């Protein structure tokens, strides 16, 4: 997986919080968990398109602000009784910087 692009510092995102990255193929939510892991999901709940980056981050999941669907940050899948999945984008952290795989972005955004 090539084309790793630096999108900012880990510390730019609050613990148990999220920020957005604007891309030509739509918004990507970048999430930071309590145990300092970073995830990237398309900012679009599989239910009604709610902006997941605005939700409450807990454990390795986020609750959509519109109708409270809980989405796994690890797989992008809806948890509990709901069914649906949102695209995930590989990210890695190096020296406190977040790198996102833009190749996957093109695929994920299709």
């Amino acid at each position, binding site marked *: 997986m090539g084309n790793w692009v630096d999108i900012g510092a880990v510390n730019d995102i609050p613990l148990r919080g999220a920020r957005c990255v*604007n891309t030509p193929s739509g918004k990507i939510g970048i999430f930071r968990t309590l145990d300092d892991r970073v995830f990237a999901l398309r900012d679009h709940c599989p239910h009604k398109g709610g902006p997941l980056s605005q939700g409450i981050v807990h454990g390795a999941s986020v609750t959509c602000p519109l109708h409270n669907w809980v989405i796994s940050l690890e797989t992008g899948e809806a948890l509990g009784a709901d069914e649906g999945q949102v695209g995930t984008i590989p990210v890695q952290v190096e020296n406190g910087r977040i790198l996102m795989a833009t190749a996957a*972005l*093109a695929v994920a955004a299709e």
Partner: protein
Amino acid sequence: MTTNLVVVGAGMASGRALEHLFEAAPGQFNVTLFGAEPRGNYNRIMLSPVLAGEKTFDEIITHDADWYAEHGVNCRFGETVTAIDRERKVVTSVKGETPYDKLLIATGSAPFIIPIAGKDLPGVMAFRDLDDVNRMTTAAAKPNARAVVIGGGLLGLEAAAALRMRGMEVVVLHLMGHLMERQLDPAAGYLLQRELESRGIKVHCKAQTKAILGEDKVDAVLLDDGTVYDADIVVMAVGIRPETRIATDAGLQIERGILVDDQMRTSDPDILAIGECVEHQGAVYGLVAPLYKMAEVAAQTLTGATAAFRPVQTATQLKVTGVSVYSAGDFAEGDDREEIVLRDASAGVYKRLVLQENRIIGAVMYGETADGPWFFDMLRQGTDIADMRDTLVFGQAYQGGSPLDPMAAVAALPDEAEICGCNGICKSKITGAIAEKGLTSLDEVRAHTKASASCGTCTGLVEQLLSLSLGDEYNPAAVQPMCPCTDLGHDEVRRLIVAKQLKSVPAVMQELEWTTSCGCAKCRPALNYYLVATWPGEYVDDNQSRFINERVHANIQKDGTYSVVPRMFGGITTPNELRAIADVADKFAIPTVKVTGGQRIDLLGVKKHDLPAVWADLNAAGMVSGAAYAKGLRTVKTCVGSDWCRFGTQDSTGLGIRIEKFMWGAWTPAKVKMAVSGCPRNCAEATCKDVGVICVDSGYDIVFAGAAGLDIKGTQALCHANSEDETIEIIAALVQLYLEQGRYLERIYKWTDRVGIDSIKAAIVDDLAKRRHYYERFVYSQEFAQVDPWEERVNGKDAHEFAAMAELNMVAAE
């Protein structure tokens, strides 16, 4: 090949028939459903709790729009079918003709209106559908309103009790010598009357209504004996008659109801009929259990299966909270009958069993009705009771010398014993579902079996079956945990936050042994609120535990944009403020500007990154956040009061502004809306607010615990104040008490229902020292709460919330 099925009537019977039909033959029927009411199928039996304010209408909806859509039902609600052409097989309604292959008539029944003078006056109503309930609720909202209920049967008494609960003066007029004479004998009727009278309901038996008096609306009811009862509304609940008009016009065979055979077919084999509108073997039914049975049979007939409807014995229960009445079978006296009676006057218990040849043929119970289903079961089975005759009336638990244990009684019920009469669900069906599907809660049992999902009177039995099946794993008395992260309930968590001096979200989770690393979207906002409310000035707000609206101080919309509502104290604005709002709307191309119900202006469709700049401009014109997003004080609506109005008694506008300026910024368990009206005409609609003030000549009447959202509830009186200062002290103390006792997301009216109005009055009205104490705590916490969040963010706070982390302009290099 699909069959075109037209259904006339969208009530409980046809709703149940459609459920069976879609289950048995999915996709086989193309259904068009006509209903006279402008809404789909709801649980009509539960209108009484809705009228009493114990349930909301939403809670009793059986089929919502999604359900109809899912099954492809063409809904024609609010459209009455006026004619059936059996030759051409079409029905006619306002919008034209609809062809059918099969027609199902389920028009139900119409309330019987006594043909007396005044019956058409505004204010005379039946108790049949949601519109009637809404009319009664509106009437009950008026202080000291009076209702006369004509008819002391099941429906009339439920209406009377509910209206009384809503604060009306209620008189029940009953033609017969005792209440509910079709279900109760005189002794039980007397006990029931005494109970209702103790609740402040006047009962007048042997009352022959002569006329309803009034010019352009109801004023009073006149009886034959000359008695006159004043009335704002008259509720006619004297009975129902099958609604057969379209069937009569179509030439179908009719007696009292539309005649049907065992397969629910009318005299035209392509037309079926079910529900209260039909007559089967000379009997007309009005209770839900037989109607559901008809629905099942009709669905089977339509799908070509064989099934037959058999006359059904029914038992009756009255749905008035705190009153237990049960009756089944035939309880008239007769030479060939014997009876067993148990009376305990001081405990208000009365049980009477009517026996014929050692078999129960009737049962009437008042006060203690748990054994009702057991007696009813033996009645239907024709069980020979000779062996247990001596102890029979004491109930099932006394048979075989076993001690009084309700669990043992339920355990001893045979598998085929009926638990839920409304839905015809027997014991084995419930225990089977619990075992097979691993059900662990009442809600799950309701979802899977429908038991206890209609009138709810069998809830206790279903819970006992749950606990019988699950043992210790089921504990109905257990406190509802806050969320799946803990076993503790809201109150316990609050108590421990104080007792253990817990001052941060992680501290609470650590000390109270949360099962998740950092909670969930349910508990985190609740904990954050409890900490804010418990430790004002000390606790540092956890932004990441706030819902997005409170995190960015604007309301998220469905498309991810936000709405912005500046405060307009008391609903008063100025040309300068309006100019600033107009300029902001232009400058940021805000698509929608709307006047809200709370007397202020909403700017909708603001992009998130524009929020701080929008606020900066509004701040510059002197406006602060209206907290339209907050679990906190929203608005104080006012009327123009003595400033302008010729009826105004006090300066309601000024008082409203004072209250809002004093109380804005406070965080509360759920939103708080207030209003101040300058006279009892109440133009500010204070009587449906969380807290309201009605100005009168002598001062200020303070009311609270109203609602006009999911629930509609008139306020209850708190007390009278003589000055603005006193009014403000009382309201602040009340809100502080709520702030300390309310569970997160629990509105004031729900909190009041939970803790009881007396406990609130004891703290705020009766005990001046306590009131002062709560008031001072409110004043203290306001020192930290009254900071304009917009200004803080204009000055750079939480800047990361409003800007993207990065802009990637390059498309992935491919």
